């Protein structure tokens, strides 16, 4: 764990340089981003969604370091920029252990840093990333938990509790987050993985909601993890700082959740890659995070399986893996929905590009991460099976680039009109939490196609 600097962060959040919101974006963030893209010669190449240019990866890292040190993070409640200096960043990077034990008992897992083209398998977190019907929460959670490659699980998000619509910051949220935490714990026990690393609870948007579920008996344990988000872009508020302070002292793993927007304030692929690396430095120094969950997404499509998105995902992980020991899961956001071949090709491409570049996996949010119940474990399984396979066979970035190009050819023309697919309850037998035969057949067909492209699945 990096040095504990919570009090210093608290002080800087109140005493750092004064800055208004608009000035932060227009006078500091955007000009500095333009500056570092030019200074370090960062250039997107559409022909290589998985680039193999070590020097470019290192320049992305250097650009991100300079950008982060000069821009800092704006606390929108105090209008102060939280700044970190170079020696503090180096200190934090030096102390980052690069490996953690997570989960408990027989379900404990070692999570270790991976290298570019590294043979260590990725740490895989299975997560639907969407909301679900209240009655679907338990079977959906069990379906994800029983996936053999799942080193950790994050459950769907509840919209209702006891039939009441959950509203953040109200008693309905307090009720909903407890229901979420207890039911997920129950699902893990039922599935025979009681100590599984659970990242929870997504239903809690507020700080009070997160604090309410910290309980080693029935809720989120200190051997579990929490995600704490950041505001777009490079902004934070006191509520997020409250969550960090609580999780630090409770003792659970902290995951900094960042989603730089392609086409947003950082501009195109180059700036989005730099910003997402910079977010990992925010996670390390300001969030005191054990890990990052990174979901850069396209402004128009809310996905990251397109060509330019895969390039920046790959670039980001190469930069991080070559220059730090930071742990990071690559969170797939896919265009098509469950029960379609397209979503499986997308998942494979995202898993492949991420793992060959040094990333771990957090899979997957289908259907633009938009529709209730529209996610199943099979999309995540595809990404993670591909990720394990390519690590095991020692696939190079050049080989990966060829295969990703073949996969893109199957879907990239349909990103704007991707099929919505079917909800969980039509793709799975809800009673047994097992996939329907037709979807399993589709999965096997697509897996065979990907194997023919050169991915050596162990089974």
């Amino acid at each position: 764990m990096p040095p504990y600097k919570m009090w210093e962060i608290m002080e800087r959040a109140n005493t750092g340089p004064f800055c208004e919101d608009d000035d932060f974006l227009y006078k500091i963030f955007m000009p500095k981003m333009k500056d570092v893209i030019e200074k370090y010669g960062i250039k997107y190449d559409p022909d290589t969604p998985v680039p193999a240019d070590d020097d470019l990866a290192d320049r992305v890292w250097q650009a991100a370091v300079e950008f982060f040190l000069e821009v800092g993070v704006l606390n929108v409640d105090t209008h102060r920029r939280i700044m970190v200096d170079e020696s503090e960043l180096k200190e934090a990077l030096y102390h980052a252990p690069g490996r953690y034990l997570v989960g408990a008992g027989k379900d404990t897992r070692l999570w270790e840093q991976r290298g570019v083209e590294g043979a260590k398998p990725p740490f895989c977190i299975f997560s639907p990333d969407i909301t679900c019907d209240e009655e679907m929460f338990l079977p959906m959670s069990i379906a994800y938990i029983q996936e053999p490659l799942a080193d950790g699980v994050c459950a769907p998000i509840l919209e209702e509790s006891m039939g009441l619509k959950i509203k953040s910051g109200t008693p309905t949220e307090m009720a909903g987050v407890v229901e979420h935490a207890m039911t997920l714990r129950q699902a893990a026990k039922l599935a025979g993985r009681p100590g599984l690393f659970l990242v929870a609870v997504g239903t809690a948007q507020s700080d009070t909601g997160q604090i309410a579920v910290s309980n080693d008996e029935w809720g989120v344990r200190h051997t579990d993890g929490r995600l704490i988000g950041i505001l777009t872009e490079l902004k934070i508020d006191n509520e997020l700082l409250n969550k960090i302070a609580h999780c630090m002292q409770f003792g659970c793993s902290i995951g900094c959740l960042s989603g730089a927007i392609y086409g947003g304030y950082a501009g195109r692929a180059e700036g989005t890659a730099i910003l997402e690396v910079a977010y990992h430095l925010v996670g390390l120094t300001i969030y005191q995070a054990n890990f990052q969950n990174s979901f850069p997404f396209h402004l128009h499509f809310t996905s990251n399986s397109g060509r330019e998105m895969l390039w920046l995902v790959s670039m980001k992980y190469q930069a991080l893996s070559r220059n730090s020991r930071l742990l990071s899961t690559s969170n797939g956001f896919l265009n098509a929905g469950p029960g379609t071949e397209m979503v499986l090709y997308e998942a494979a491409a995202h898993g492949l590009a991420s793992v060959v570049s040094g990333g771990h996996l957090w899979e997957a949010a289908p259907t633009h991460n938009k529709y209730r119940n529209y996610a199943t474990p099979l999309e995540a399984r595809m990404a993670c099976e591909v990720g394990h396979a390519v690590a095991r066979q020692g696939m190079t970035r050049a080989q990966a680039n060829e295969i990703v190009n073949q996969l893109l050819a199957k879907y990239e023309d349909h990103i704007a009109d991707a099929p919505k697919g079917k909800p969980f309850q039509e793709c799975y037998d809800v009673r047994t939490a097992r996939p329907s035969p037709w979807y399993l057949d589709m999965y096997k067909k697509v897996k065979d196609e990907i194997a023919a492209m050169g991915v050596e699945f162990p089974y």
Partner: protein
Amino acid sequence: MAMLEKLVEAVQEGEEREAVATAGKAIQEGIPVDEIIEALTAGMREIGDRFARMEIFLPEMMLAAQAMQAVMRELEPEIQKSATPTEKKGTVVIGTVEGDMHEIGKDIVITLLQVQGFDVHDLGADVNALDFVRKAEEVHADIIGASALMSTTMPGQREIIEFLKEKGVREKYHVILGGAPVTREWVKECGADSWGENAGVAVEILERVMAERRM
């Protein structure tokens, strides 16, 4: 007309200083202010279209919008003198609902609305539902726009509709909802008037709504 083309180009490129200086020269040359505004409006519509086609992205659009606003401030004395004052397309009160700090989607909609000539009152993020209603009443708005990025903050959108009904003013406003988790079904369930599926669609809908209201 070369001067107007130069002005529009400067605005589209986000060159604020050059745009303001060129606008001053255009006035000095005697170009009527309504012609200048017409050219600028067409130029900004093109910027909006290029954004929708993904030829440009947020930084370029925001800089163009800032340049446009600077030029409009420069032209304000001439607009005041003009015999045919420019008419706002409509008045919009917009914000992100309570408990939700996400602003980028709302900010894109605001930028697109402003460049199309709407009068926009931005309430910011984490806005209580009643504050939407109060502001709309205060500024005699035509439209209320509410954004939510989290499923657990979406109920704040429905509350706006409920408060409008409680106060007996529901029919005065067109209510449009947007944000990543918002769907057509949710909009219908809330009893809102339209779904801003994305920023471009939202602006198209509101332009159509205001055109119908003026008929």
